[in-house]
């Protein structure tokens, strides 16, 4: 069947099988950040945005994304770099396989709630599993990123 979707602001038309999953569609179109972790809709590694909402691409038919806007980490390089550096600074991750899904859902969280509490962070990111760490490093990284963003905002405010 024919579908058309906008992936990272680029229009893609393709002829797909009715049961093709979005993750396979995206990887076939060069979005290798999208990872398959658990196959049971539980780990969050395959997180992408559909119409700016985070979803599990391993459990979504590509057919259902027809006519929609899909964003992967490849399309969010700038946002990901700033945030990612703070996670890396904490040495939070070891193998890094869970990183793209974590970045995506972290970005989704900041868009919904720019100044989350620890409890809100843990709740929002509960569906992103990491099998190397105990999430403490990630939490420290997120806290210092929030601090940095606040400082930046304060400095900007001070100038005005």
């Amino acid at each position, binding site marked *: 069947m024919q579908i058309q979707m906008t992936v990272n602001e680029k229009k893609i038309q393709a002829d797909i099988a*009715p049961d093709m999953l979005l993750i396979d569609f995206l990887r076939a179109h060069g979005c290798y950040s999208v990872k398959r972790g658990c196959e049971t809709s*539980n780990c*969050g590694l395959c997180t992408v945005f559909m119409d700016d*909402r985070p979803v*599990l691409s391993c*459990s979504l*038919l590509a057919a259902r994304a027809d006519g929609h806007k899909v964003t992967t980490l490849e399309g969010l390089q700038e946002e990901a770099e700033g945030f990612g550096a703070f996670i890396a600074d904490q040495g939070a991750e070891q193998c890094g396989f869970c990183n793209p899904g974590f970045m995506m*859902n972290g970005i989704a969280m900041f868009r919904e709630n720019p100044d989350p509490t620890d409890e809100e962070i843990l709740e929002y990111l*509960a*569906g992103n599993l990491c099998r190397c760490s105990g999430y403490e490093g990630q939490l420290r990284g997120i806290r210092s990123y929030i601090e940095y963003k606040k400082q930046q905002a304060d400095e900007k405010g001070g100038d005005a």
Partner: protein
Amino acid sequence: MLTINQYVKASSLEEAYELNQKKSNVILGGMLWLKMQKRNVGTAIDLSGLGLDAIEETEEAYRIGAMVTLRHLELHGGLNALTQGAARESVRRIVGVQFRNMATVGGSVFGRYGFSDVLTFLMAAGAQVELYKAGRMPVETFAYLPYDRDILTHVIVPKRSMKAAYLSQRNTKTDFPVAACCVVQDMDAGGEIRCVIGARPMKAVCLRDERGILAEGITAGSAQAFGDYVTETVETGTNLRGSAQYRKIVAGVLAKRALLQIAGLEERA
């Protein structure tokens, strides 16, 4: 593995209903549970083009479309104000935000799953389902009907004056519950207490205060006694998450705590 031969985005409920009469065809909800099955689907029927993804508010009720996501339910101000956050509490522990952005209310309710938090909440809230052919009926009735080829289009939560609390016990944060409990005191039904136990792991069941344990009001003592009644009465089963006996005890504790919460005798978490 799930295979699908054909995908149809239905353009009307009638079309979806016609397609759904064939046994090898299936209506898609969020497709999360469906995907876990080994199944060859003829035609996957998608209802997402039928405007069923909205929560409409009327004078008397909230009418939740079948394609409304669990995340939408979680963040809905009106429903959470009506139920003192029980709507949110019933879904916030389910996997993650991404999952809840996909899983649908219709899928959860039509499936009548033995692990369902959503069914537990809606049954206690006194909700009704709206089916394309069979019309309206209480969730409590629908839960025990045999599976048929009808289409669930809406779930209606009546705006009744109620006190509600939702609690669940999970082995780990994002897992299915070992037991779930939603207690509602329905002021528009003479203060009737509905105590629904879910994840038994059978379909949720509603226990009422048939012995009048709470007739004199909810106190530390009567809540404890009702909890004991729940432990004694509720039918449970064993699976890898917990034994039947353990579930009975947990269900009783959850019922007691939920009662204390609605009476304002225990703080909400």
